[in-house]
């Protein structure tokens, strides 16, 4: 690694630094965020980085392994040193990004950042820890079998996004986990840990000068290099209604997602559709909650959400009725969805929800940590940097016509994916009798077939 590369790498981090200063509590946080996440496992860059065919779970595996030995410290020494400082160091891999973060009391922050720098820049990738991590990941898959909500989202994504990156779980599958190796991790690290592919951020009781000094001292060896993010391909459109039942024994309740593909965050339709979705199912008084929970008591929760990210995400409604009331609830949600798509918002709903979104925005940016997270996410997704500041004004300017156009363009009540974690024998016969599912394609899969 040349001196020139090192110097330019640090400058890149400092030039792009996001700082949210707040001295109310003696806590400091430093983050380094990669502009790619597990979606890189499926792209050409991911393939190149792994030194062979793309391997599902590689990004998660390689990044988590970084803290299992770094610099001159073993994993145990890293853990003990961090504990001695009362510091927390976390590495989280999502589809869109990887977050490296250290947090501690101000008095210990310099030493905590020193460890973070070792972890990010100088992982030793020990072989025994690699095997241990592989076993941990397999155990996590075992635990997933006990998590009905986790199962629901995993199967829903697989069915909706198919072979495209968001259809592949961040942590991979049992087979892909067994196929991961240290060579792939080393190659992944060389490819992705470069300054242009990272966003530095800090929050808490620390000044700009102090953060810059920390970065210069501890990250002087960060290599220069370009961004590694690539365009995430959208999945092919599917027509018709599909019902995927994830069959799990002894369920008294059904976990249900009903959804479809949504516009990209950058698409002009996204904001109007977001406003409409919150009106449909984003608050306690939204019509979905009102009809499902308040009027009928069918489910503890009933919500709708429009996703966003670096690529095209989903729009879905989520309910969890009892097994006996599953068909009744699915029929109701389908009817509400159809009505929403065909007739749009009801009188008064737009004014109400615009008001709610504008005023509640204060909570989205309440703490320095909140603001740091949002600003980083905007950069990762290549969104305008003033996006959050202009959010209330942009929401206020959304019109009925904007919403009608967005809903007409995007809502497809005839082409919905209905994913249900339930005991199939208990719910399938009644679901097959529903008029709205007469022509639907039904599939039943075992809950542990992931």
């Amino acid at each position, binding site marked *: 690694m040349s001196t020139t590369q090192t110097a330019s790498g640090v400058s890149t981090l400092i030039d792009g630094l996001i700082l949210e200063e707040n001295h109310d509590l003696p806590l400091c946080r430093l983050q380094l965020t990669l502009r790619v996440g597990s979606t890189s496992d499926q792209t050409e860059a991911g393939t190149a980085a792994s030194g062979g065919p793309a391997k599902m779970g590689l990004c998660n595996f390689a990044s988590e392994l970084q803290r299992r030995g770094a610099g001159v410290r073993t994993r145990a020494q890293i853990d003990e040193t961090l504990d001695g400082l*009362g510091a927390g160091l976390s590495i989280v891999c999502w589809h869109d990004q990887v977050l490296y973060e250290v947090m501690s009391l101000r008095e210990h922050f310099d030493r905590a950042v020193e460890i973070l720098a070792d972890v990010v820049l100088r992982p030793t990738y020990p072989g025994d820890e690699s095997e241990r991590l592989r076993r*941990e990941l397999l155990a996590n898959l075992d635990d997933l079998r006990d998590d009905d909500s986790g199962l629901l989202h995993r199967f829903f994504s697989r069915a909706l996004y198919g072979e495209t990156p968001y259809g592949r779980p961040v942590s991979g599958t049992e087979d892909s986990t067994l196929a991961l190796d240290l060579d792939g991790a080393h190659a992944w690290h060389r490819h992705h840990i470069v300054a242009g592919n990272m966003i530095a951020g800090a929050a808490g009781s620390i000044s700009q000068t102090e953060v810059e000094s920390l970065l210069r001292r501890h990250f002087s060896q960060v290599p220069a290099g370009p961004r590694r993010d690539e365009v995430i391909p959208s999945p092919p459109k599917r027509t018709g209604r599909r019902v995927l039942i994830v069959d799990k024994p002894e369920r008294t309740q059904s976990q249900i997602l009903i959804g479809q593909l949504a516009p990209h965050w950058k698409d002009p339709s996204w904001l109007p559709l977001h406003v409409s979705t919150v009106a449909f199912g984003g608050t306690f008084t939204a019509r979905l909650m009102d009809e499902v929970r308040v009027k009928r008591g069918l489910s*503890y929760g009933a919500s709708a959400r429009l996703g966003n990210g670096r690529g095209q995400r989903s729009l879905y409604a989520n309910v969890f009725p009892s097994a006996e009331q599953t068909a009744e609830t699915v029929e109701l949600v389908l009817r509400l969805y159809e009505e929403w798509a065909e007739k749009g918002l009801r009188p008064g709903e737009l004014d109400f929800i615009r008001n709610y979104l504008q005023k509640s925005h204060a909570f989205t940016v309440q703490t320095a940590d909140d603001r740091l997270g949002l600003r980083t996410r905007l950069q990762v997704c290549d969104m305008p940097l003033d996006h959050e500041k202009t959010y209330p004004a942009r929401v206020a300017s959304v019109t009925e016509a904007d919403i009608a156009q967005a809903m007409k363009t995007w809502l497809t009540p005839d082409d919905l994916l209905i994913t249900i974690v339930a005991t199939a024998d208990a719910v399938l016969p009644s679901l097959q009798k529903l008029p709205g599912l007469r022509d639907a394609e039904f599939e039943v899969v075992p809950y542990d077939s992931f």
Partner: protein
Amino acid sequence: MTDVTLVSEQPFGEGGLVSRLYQLKNGLKVLLLRDPSAPVFAYQTWFSVGSRHEREGKTGIAHLFEHLMFNETQNLPHGEFDRRFELAGGNTNAATWVDWTYYQDDLPASELALAVSLESERMQNLLLRERQVETERGVVISERQMRVDDDVDGFMSEELFRLAFTTHPYHWPTIGWMQDIRNLSLDDCERFYRTYYAPNNATVVVAGDIDESQTLALIVKHYGGIGAQTIPVTEVIVEPVQTEQRVVRFRKPVLTDKILMGYKSPAQHDPDHLRMELLGEILIGSASSPIYRDLVIEKEIFSSLGGSVTPFRDPGLWEISASLHRGHGADEGLALFDQHIAHFVAHGPTAEQLDRARARMLTSFYLSLKTAHGKASSLGESQTTLGDYRELWRVPQILRSITVADLHAVAQRYLRPELRTVVIAEPSGEASDEDEAEGDDDGAEA
């Protein structure tokens, strides 16, 4: 202001904030903390009533009633309470546990009058109707199915307390037994409201970007006319000393064994409580903790291990949960766990172990106070469970004063096999149709 008395005040941390406790003539306690760091505030109402105030056959009433508090009042049609909060950009929610029930509103700074008006309205003017009870009963049943019946961890937690407490109301779950939830009546709900939802059984906590005088004036105006009630004295129920370990096993649709155990632990006001928390943090709280390091990282017996000490008014449990790796059984895991406990009881912690755990707990303490909501929750819980919000800021002081000898003594007092209850879930296999309890509560040793 003659209708209200300043009871006490205390600096909130070292950043210049001050928390103050006032009391109205009707007994309502008001705890205020001005923190202008963000243009929002948290408004919380803590009632000193939870599932411990229920009785057999009526379990779940405190929680069901919490749901009903979001319904119609004399001056607000059905649905209007939530609608007004959302229109103001706020969020409202509630929680019930063994010792308390609290209602929380997070709102932009401009909406203080709304919060005071609506919360005082439902404290005194709630309307209860048969139809709403029936609807909320269905919602609560759905919640119970999600949290307990279809969730093996929730199921095991319920069984742990059922088995560990034979006499004390901590025996039953806050959400209630399913049979009781189905049988609760409108009359039960009305009686519960009249009995416990009174100003002299509540503390209003407001933290955030507020004007203290204006807040106090609004609260006096809206709550001052609500009459105090005679609150039943909370019965002192002493759980008999446990003399034998209790173990029960269930067959559940899990792939590997799971363990949930609980050692009888001190009440939150007991000086030993924080020591017990620190002890738990030392043993299993992080990757460098001896039991975690040995059984999760080195030997890979457990795939996960965690624990916490119940923050209850009366003695509760140090709960420890563990999932086993494939190829390892609950009995093997328990035996290895017990070896560590025996060593710790014999030798106590090292100074380094204590320092590391202390540092982690101090960081966690400050982290919990980041938001207005976090500040209000911490103050409200201290006031309600410990009887004095000022106890909150004793936590860092006490943490810094705890010694190795303190923890060694606590380990010897509480980490005794006869004080432990163990719930084990084992794989049922494909053919299992129902839960099958294989143990009992008569002292079978693991």
